[in-house]
């Protein structure tokens, strides 16, 4: 199908031929999978769309699906921008993603077990020990500790992009406290409310089964000797930016949403304070960082955690999900060894591509990086949320020099990758009242339990709302789209 310029909301759609467009092929025709949707959307006037967009926004606001922004003196509530044009993933394409995500989660789990026990992969020099010895997330406290069920990364968020070659690449694995899954579900709800008419033209997988699978996974890693485990979600509290997600997960699993002050440790068990007295807690899905978990073992002034919790964990009387110390493996430097890690533990070729990575810690690669900064993305190894990233072709001469100096001062802290060209997707832009190309990525959610695994059929498609921007994180002004995985 040719792009019909009579569709008013697509009238301003400019196609940059250098970018991989998810909707249009090289000849400017709508790809088969999007035809029906495009037809349906093409029938809407600009006013219709403005209206729908406002309604969707109000729906998020009224549902309290918001996060707090602390600028100036007063806190403000904001919604995570949501786009009404869904991203569609074909069944065979999804199958590769799903298999690849499970493969990575399993390999990372085996890697974590190894580096906290026999350390074979380090002894054999397949992963340099220096990557871990300098990592604050490699916790000595976790040495020789067997987490219930042998699972470390129960919940993994894998960030994928589609490059201009049309292939998926993994950008990073998030196995500490990956967030965003509640948006997958609320995006679906919002889209259904606004454009219910489009759903009956596609056979899309439901995304509402995440919570029951998560509860299944949590119950599968119950401590030894417990029959019916009591699971809870541990939140830092209602002022945390992901609080909506914490309360959503607790509510949809039907478990208590606790704060550190609701829990206490006595006689080597964890209890929560209820109106009927203490109740034992067996599995804690915690959404606070390792260093806040227990002031006796980690940061002493943390009031978010539970004094004595780690002692209970070490004795196997409670399960912490994800296990402490998983941050050692989702480090950007470890990422670059993922192909080797997958081969080492699973004896398989990686299903999902890794981006070619240059380690500034290695002299020859450092040299290459310093000479080719304009063609590279330079990232600090240990920053989350898109901070500290320099994109080579956006830098002035002076900025390039500054980046070089930073790298030279601390080579171990930086890696560099070729500038990946994220695919683009038609996205509704409020200022111009029309659709424009915007870069997108995809975060998938994988669950790993004792003899159980699950990948949410869907995911969070994040959009960089600023024109030309490659950074999709919500903390950097990104939005998101509903993501449809089609049934075979």
């Amino acid at each position, binding site marked *: 199908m040719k792009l019909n310029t009579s569709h008013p909301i697509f009238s301003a759609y400019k196609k940059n031929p250098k970018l991989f467009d998810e909707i249009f092929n090289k000849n400017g025709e709508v790809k088969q999978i999007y035809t029906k949707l495009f037809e349906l959307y093409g029938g809407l006037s600009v006013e219709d769309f403005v209206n729908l967009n406002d309604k969707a926004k109000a729906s998020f606001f*009224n549902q309290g699906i918001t996060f707090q922004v602390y600028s100036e003196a007063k806190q403000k509530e904001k919604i995570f921008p949501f786009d009404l044009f869904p991203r569609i993933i074909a069944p065979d394409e999804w199958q590769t993603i799903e298999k690849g995500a499970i493969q990575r989660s399993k390999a990372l789990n085996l890697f974590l077990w190894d580096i906290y026990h026999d350390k074979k992969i380090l002894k054999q020099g397949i992963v340099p020990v220096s990557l871990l010895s300098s990592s604050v997330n490699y916790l000595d406290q976790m040495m020789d500790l067997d987490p219930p069920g042998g699972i470390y990364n129960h919940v993994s968020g894998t960030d994928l992009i589609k490059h201009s070659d049309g292939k998926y690449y993994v950008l990073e694995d998030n196995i500490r406290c990956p967030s965003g899954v509640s948006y997958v579900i609320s995006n679906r709800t919002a889209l259904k409310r606004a454009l219910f008419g489009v759903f009956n033209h596609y056979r899309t997988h439901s995304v509402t089964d995440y919570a029951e699978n998560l509860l299944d996974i949590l119950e599968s890693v119950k401590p030894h000797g417990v029959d019916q485990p009591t699971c809870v979600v541990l939140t830092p509290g209602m002022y945390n930016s992901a609080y909506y997600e914490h309360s959503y997960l*607790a509510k949809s699993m039907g478990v*208590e949403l*606790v704060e550190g002050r*609701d829990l206490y440790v006595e006689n080597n068990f964890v209890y929560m304070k*209820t*109106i009927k*007295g203490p109740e034992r807690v067996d599995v804690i899905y915690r959404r606070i960082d390792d260093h806040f978990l227990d002031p006796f073992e980690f940061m002493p002034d943390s009031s978010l955690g539970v004094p004595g919790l780690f002692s209970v964990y070490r004795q196997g009387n409670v399960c912490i999900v994800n296990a402490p110390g998983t941050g050692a493996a989702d480090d950007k430097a470890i990422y670059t060894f993922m192909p080797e890690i997958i081969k080492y533990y699973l004896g398989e070729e990686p299903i999902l591509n890794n981006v070619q990575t240059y380690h500034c810690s290695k002299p020859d690669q450092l040299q290459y990086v310093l000479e080719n900064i304009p063609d590279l993305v330079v990232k600090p190894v240990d920053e989350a949320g898109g901070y500290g990233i320099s994109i080579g072709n956006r830098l002035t001469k002076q900025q390039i020099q500054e980046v070089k100096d930073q790298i030279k001062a601390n080579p171990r802290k930086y890696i560099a990758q070729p500038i990946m060209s994220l695919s683009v997707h038609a996205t509704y832009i409020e200022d111009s009242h029309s659709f424009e190309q915007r870069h997108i990525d995809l975060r998938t959610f994988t669950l790993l339990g004792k003899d159980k695994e699950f990948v949410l059929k869907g995911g969070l498609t994040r959009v960089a709302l600023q024109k030309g921007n490659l950074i999709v994180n919500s903390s950097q002004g990104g939005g998101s789209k509903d993501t449809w995985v089609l049934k075979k």
Partner: protein
Amino acid sequence: MLARVANNLFWMGRYIERSEYIARYLNVNYFSSLDAPHPLSQSRQFVLRSMLFMMGQPVSDPDLELDEEEVFFDITFNEENPFSLINNVNYARDNANSSRDQMSTELYESINKFYHAVQNYPVEFFKKKGLYDFTVYVTEMTAVLRGKIRGTILHDEIYAIIMLGINLERATQIVRIINAKYNDAKLAKGSYGDAFRNSYEWTTLLKCGESYDMHRRLNKKAPNSISTLNFMLLNAQNPKSVMNCLNQVYNHILVLDSSLINDKSTVKFYIGKIRSEYEFKIATEIEDDIQENIDDLLNKLTIISQKIEEEYFNY
């Protein structure tokens, strides 16, 4: 249920109910005063003072000239004033936020919408023209919230705790209104017979408690002090009466404490005791010393709340 969450739900109920009473007190007093029979009841200064008295922020200086807009703003939208209506709504929503996983989406969404509507209400419009519109909106929204509480969450412990909060707050507010209006009636006496007993303030009192029409239906005559006290304190069929609230509080505490043993240290025992006391009270006895009865009742309601907190929220 978590003790902290129970505490949040209890206070959510209280703040929702309290918001309603602040709004209605403003509305009824202001609009009743416009054509009140007693010149004092018509006086703006008198009405404004009564409002501040009811809010627990009485003005002691008799010569102080109050500014109407300032007083209205202070009671409603002043975020600096911890007792203001907007802060009550903020507290209600904060409490709902920290217990939102326990309640229905429908209930949470209504509270959240209410919060945003109050936050975004045009303050200038309110000061000039919006008193009626805004106060009616608040009282209607609180009724919607009670409807969602009743109709969308399980009638288990969670419901019992919210309803404990609502009913204790309602009883407290009714007693405070009686207190304020008793005070007003002493000053603005009626024009026939026993001036105090027949003050117009008893009418206002009933209206503040949304009980005027029902009082009429039952008594078929203009309210006086005895009939009003009877109706607002002792008539168990009146959903706004203290007696009705105490009965509800007792029924809800039974959900939390189903033990058959009458342990004298429990709040259940204490509530039962107060409830029995009021079941057999007579309005004329109360009228003999209204002030002392009011103080005593307020004190007992505070003790009930404290005992609930100690027993259930403070593990």
